[in-house]
């Protein structure tokens, strides 16, 4: 073979390459993901979509730490019912009313709410187009999405007050900047979503689907929204629609015992699970309340004021009520807490008293059940029947039905053995004050999203308006002196969010 022959062939190869190599080489398929074009076509897709919407209840990133150490702390630490461990950085600035706009807790709350809203918006837009499934089921799933969207906006409007109202899943990266709506518009949307949900949701689900939003949950939440809006008549009517439809757990502690979750008192709970077959749905809440002495992290403590209030909650015989023993671990011969060993044992206060940093601890959610390792899958209550009864009582009192209000309170007290109230001994203002600063905190202390939002609505409303600073000061909340009334009532709009959305206006004072 002549070398010129080789040379010509070589050049041919080279030229062929330059001109014949097509762009097909650059066209690859994504073998790991479905796309929007291939999704939202089957019933399974609809169920997966609504599952993802529920998942945002646990936070935007799936991390239970984000939920309990960023979001929970942000919402709970400002309340007068608890005090934080100052050596822990989580929520520390929030608790001392010295936070700026960079603290990550409020951002995580913001992001989680909008993650839920974004997923709900996808379900609301896409599920009605899935023609292969029954219309009734499609409507129900859309109803669930609306319920969840309302819940997320409820957190936003109470936490931040001035928030963008996003009702459509925007896919164009250039159209993501939305300005804030008025709080009235947001509240109106919450009411509308809950009213729609109320129509679409079933009264109950089969066992394997427990945890999804029911019609009762929508009604209870709608009643709560009316209460926050001081629409007393509508609130009373809505609460009465579910009065008697649920019942209190026989024991106060049952509410925090993961073996009995989604029970008769449960109206809506954030679901967690010790089942690790697929993904990890456990959380560390049980560590966070426990003292170091029983292997806890003691992030939070009951405030001295709360303990004092608890100690007023006695039976006819003058003993502490069951809800006191069920809420706090304190210096009392009968006070006990589960340790975290496997198997767990009940530890008496006296046996660890010398090892404790502080005199009083919470013990709600500190149960050794549904565990995987030391973490638990205990659900966290969003709204339970005792709360509904107390809200109904508050509503009745404002509607001047004092005796009926006292009856509802006594239903709750009776379950814990607390001596009943006498309607004749109280006037309207006294009963309002009792509900606000004894019944609700003693029954619902430290529970998810209760106390701080209560303080906010009483400060923001017109009925029996109470400035938060005054309440905090009266209840010896640490750092109450740092509290600035028209500032710390709201979280700042997260600095990170304003940095990418110049349409947002920062809240007063930040």
């Amino acid at each position, binding site marked *: 073979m002549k*070398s010129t022959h*080789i*040379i010509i062939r*070589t*050049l041919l*190869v*080279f030229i062929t390459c*330059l001109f014949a*190599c097509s*762009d097909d080489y650059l066209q*690859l398929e*994504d073998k*790991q*993901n*479905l796309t*929007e074009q291939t999704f939202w076509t089957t019933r399974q897709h609809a169920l*997966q*979509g*609504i*599952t993802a919407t529920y998942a945002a209840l646990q936070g935007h*990133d799936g*991390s239970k730490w984000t939920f309990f150490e960023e979001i929970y702390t942000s919402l709970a630490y400002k309340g007068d019912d608890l005090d934080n461990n*100052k*050596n822990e950085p989580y929520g520390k*600035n929030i608790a001392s009313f010295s936070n700026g706009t960079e603290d*990550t807790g409020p951002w*995580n709350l913001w992001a989680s709410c909008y*993650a839920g809203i*974004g*997923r709900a918006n996808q379900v609301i837009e896409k599920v009605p187009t899935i023609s292969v499934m029954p219309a009734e089921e499609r409507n129900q799933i859309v109803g669930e999405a609306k319920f969840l969207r309302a819940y997320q906006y409820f957190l936003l409007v109470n936490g931040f007050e001035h928030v*963008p109202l996003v009702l459509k*899943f925007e896919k164009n*990266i250039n159209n*993501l900047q939305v300005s804030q709506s008025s709080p009235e518009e947001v509240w109106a949307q919450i009411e509308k979503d809950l009213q729609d949900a109320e129509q679409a949701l079933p009264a109950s689900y089969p*066992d394997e689907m*427990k*945890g999804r939003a029911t019609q009762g949950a929508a009604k209870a939440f709608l009643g709560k929204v009316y209460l926050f809006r001081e629409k007393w008549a509508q609130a009373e009517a809505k609460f009465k629609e579910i009065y008697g439809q649920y019942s209190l757990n026989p024991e106060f502690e049952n509410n925090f015992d993961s073996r009995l979750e*989604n029970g008769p008192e449960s109206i809506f709970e954030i*679901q*967690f*699970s010790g*089942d*690790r*077959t*697929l*993904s990890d*749905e456990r959380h560390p809440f049980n*560590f966070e309340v426990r003292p*170091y002495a029983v*292997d806890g992290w003691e992030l939070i403590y009951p405030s001295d004021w709360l303990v004092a209030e608890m100690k007023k909650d006695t039976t006819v015989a003058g003993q502490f009520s069951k809800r006191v023993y069920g809420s706090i671990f304190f210096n009392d011969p009968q006070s006990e807490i589960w340790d975290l060993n*496997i198997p767990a044992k009940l530890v008496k206060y006296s046996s660890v008293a*010398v090892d404790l940093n502080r005199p009083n601890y919470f013990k709600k959610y500190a149960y050794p*059940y549904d565990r*995987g390792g030391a973490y638990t*899958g205990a659900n966290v209550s969003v709204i339970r029947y005792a709360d509904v009864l107390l809200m109904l009582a508050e509503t009745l009192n404002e509607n001047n039905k004092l005796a009926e209000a006292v009856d509802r309170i006594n239903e709750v007290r009776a379950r814990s053995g607390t001596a009943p109230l006498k309607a004749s001994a109280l006037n309207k203002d006294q009963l309002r004050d009792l509900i606000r600063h004894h019944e609700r905190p003693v029954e619902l202390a430290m529970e998810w999203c209760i106390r701080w939002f209560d303080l906010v609505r009483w400060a923001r409303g017109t009925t029996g308006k109470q400035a938060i600073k005054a309440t905090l000061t009266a209840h010896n909340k640490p750092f109450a*002196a740092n509290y600035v009334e028209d500032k710390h009532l709201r979280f700042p709009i997260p*600095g*990170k969010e304003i*940095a990418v*959305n110049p349409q947002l206006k920062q809240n007063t004072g930040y």
Partner: protein
Amino acid sequence: MFRYTIFLFLGLLLMSLGNLLAHPPLPDWVIRGTVTDVAGLPIKDANVTVKNNNLGTSTDAEGHFSLKVPENSTLVISSTGYKTLEQKLSNAEPLFIVLESAVVGLDEFVVVGYGTQRKSDVTSAISNVNVKNLEKQPAANIGTLLQGQAPGVIVSTGSGNPAGNPVVLVRGMNSINNDRPLYVVDGIPLGYVNDLNPSDIESVNILKDASAATIYGAQAAGGVILITTKKGKSGEPRINYNSYVSTHSLNQNIDLLDKAQMNQVVKAAFANDGGTAPPFYLDDSKYANTNWRDAYFKNGVEQKHDIDVSAGGEKMNYRISWGHWEHTGTIINSGSKRDNLRLNSEIKLLKNRLKVSPILAYTRFNNKDFGDVLGDGNAGFSNIMNVYATLPHKSIYDPATANGYAKPESILGSGNPVGERNLSTNRTIDDYFQANLSAELNLFAGLSYTFSLGKTIQNTFGYSQTAAYDFGPQSLVENPSRFESRGRSEYLVFNHLLNYDQKFGQHNLKALAGFSRQKDHFQGTSGGGNHLSSPLIEALSGLIVDGTADFIRAGGWNVSNTLQSYFGRLNYNYNDKYYLQGSVRRDGSSRFGSENRYGTFYSASAGWALHRESFFKAAWISELKPRVSYGIVGNQNISNFQYLAKIYIRSNDPLLNYPFGSSASQSVAVGAAAIALANDNIKWEQTATFNAGLSFGLLENKLTGSFDFFRSNTSDMLAETPIPTSSGITFLPITNVADMQNTGWELTTTYRKSSTGGINFDVTANLSHSQNKIIRLGYEEGNIVDGFVDFNNRATTLTQKGLPLASFNLFQTAGLFSSQAEIDAYKNKDGDLLQPDAKPGDLRFVDVNQDGALDDSDKVIMGNALPSLDFGLTFNASYKNFDFSLFLNGKQGQKMYNGARMFLYRQFRSTELLNAWTSANASSEVFRLSNDDLNQNLRVSDYFLEDASFVRLRNLQLGYTFPQKLVGKMALSKLRVYAGAFNLLTFTKYQGFDPDLSNNGIFSRGVDRGFYPLSKSFIAGINVGF
């Protein structure tokens, strides 16, 4: 097409076998000789070739050679640094050849993209690393070797982890996305070189400006490091053996409190808050007094053995090398091993018109893992800090337990770091296989064609197996568990190059045209579960599920990407005085949507050899060459399919999953939704660089060097872009979000002195500086806050328009309050105290903006972690049989946030706390002890920001080469022994482990979370030639 090319080359190979078998006529004379310098010292590795023939050999360590040659030939003897000599042979007598020192450097070749260039022809900014200096620094990886050796290449140790890789930056930070250089090994672009044995390296050249790097287009934005590996030398087979052993002790310069001291400090802290310390701090006589650090760390031993055989003849040369490196680790149950095998060969065919060079390389890594917490975002403290924080009150061992390790008393909290580490095994076993084939065919009239193909296969395997243990609820493994993962990556590159090189009178022309394709395909599988039926089983088949707390999970990956490129380069010079170069590359990438798939990159440069002008009279200047260049390179380093609207679904990720059901342990449903946005506008990131430089040589090139100034503008940087989370999207999209500018200069200079019979030495100094600035970051007010030192809390860095990347943004302190009166006087105009929670001894924070309140707006920009000056100084000297080398490197002007110190304050472990402020110790600068820290002394402030400038004696080595007479009796050709020390001395004010341990996160650079400390090592080694 591709298959066709393969057939063609198989054909060429077969055809040429005939040529291989047909020997040329046997030469007649056997010539022996010795080559020395003017001082009479032997010159090793000098090339001895026969003029107009392909015969040749090279000299051994004693300067001896032996070669069969045709009668009356002319020998050409050459060696780097010496003038080439031609010797006409008239008989076969032994020769004594003396080579004169040459004006160094001008005729050396440097490797450039897809070829080589005479050093004197270079018009762009290329650093040529002196491999001889590298050989004096035995090290396991290339990054470490490059430290301080080339101006403009900033290498940070990264971590003291022996299996870790350093952070290499070419010309500082160019981008907020990919700032890592592209490595090109023997012409094949690769993203890494950690599989390469440094002993196999022949040359390292760094392409720094766009004019040099444009030929690598879209992959070149972070600079390009070109590495060639050693080839066979002509002559009889020769064997070299090199080995060293070194001992490593960690630099544990941070002192920790023992139990009694800690008790004292904690008691004082609680007392200051008006409380009482937890009971276990109260009685010094109770509990253990464990030094966890001593139990967790150990002294390590590193050893490396390299052996190679090389030989060459007229038609073929080869080099086979084997290297073994191992390090026992400086942490218990850790360590690393690497084995390298490499065959480089070259076959000449078709009457030397075709040169075929196959390369085969295989690398095996065995690693007992130790993970460090590097990177941006929500990163916690490192495992090292967890060991440092472990209470001395805890015991390590307890013979009464099943595994022998102590479970801490409940009150002391969970955890036993020594037990946890020893009961858990983490291993990775990775194989790297590389096959390169290149063929160069001389066509006609200066035209040649080169085909090269590179195939890299990586098989990675990792597993972790943990025995059941219970060190308290937070350190509980209920059952033995096992996880495994396997990955398989196949990477294929091929290049077709057409080269033209011709001289027309005084006009010298070189041209290159090329086409290249590369494809990367990764597939992986992971699986595992938390319940092995027995700890004796070490296979996933032994996993069981016994109840809902147990799981067996699987995961997997399947991704690929492709790049298709056309490129060309034109070099022209007139009379070796005026130089011009232009390059262009057009890249198409699968990572972009069809609209923006292609990017074109170009560059132009010019140089002027001033010293060759007739009017240039300064005799003491031997070289003076100003040069200037401008060009554009790109960056495409993002993950695939950013342009698609993806739906996320992962069964083992809690992100979108949610439990439903009535039982306590509800079963988990899998969720799916869009959680990221598609960005079909995404396109290339581009860096435009202007470079002006001057190469110089003085005093017959005894003093040589170069200076370069550069300014680069990176636009449309590809990075994760914060978007409003009100969109419901928390996964940040990658967009072309930002522009930045990087400016700097670099200087390198070498002085060589040789004298007859006396001391020979050379000194090389490298200096470089770079500074970056963000020009645009998203929206007008856009910023990125990062550098968290305490999980998601305590952000230390800010990146925004007008600032350097990751600038420290911290509160400013003004000493301690010495009295309550001072605190009371520190108030705003309304009379409110600025620090109402302060007590005497607390830090005073400055109300910088004087708005009467302390808040985030009072934070001040306080520099960043990039050095303003990076320098290296290498000194080599030899006297008779002794040689000595010393290498200093340093960085000036870099800041570090000592998060480790903050952590050890918070955990009451730092010995500085013994000197905390009290009214009796009022001169102390350490703020008062407090557990509640109501004043937030631990907030991010300049208190913990430190100057991390340093000068380090990195290498000190003394060697002795045995005289040839002695060595000859041992049947050796060479024997050298040496001893030295690494990291012997560091001069710094930085109080953390090390000022050079850099976080590899772009937005967290300089945030020290307490990484793996650096080792100090002593080394002894031997070089033997057989």
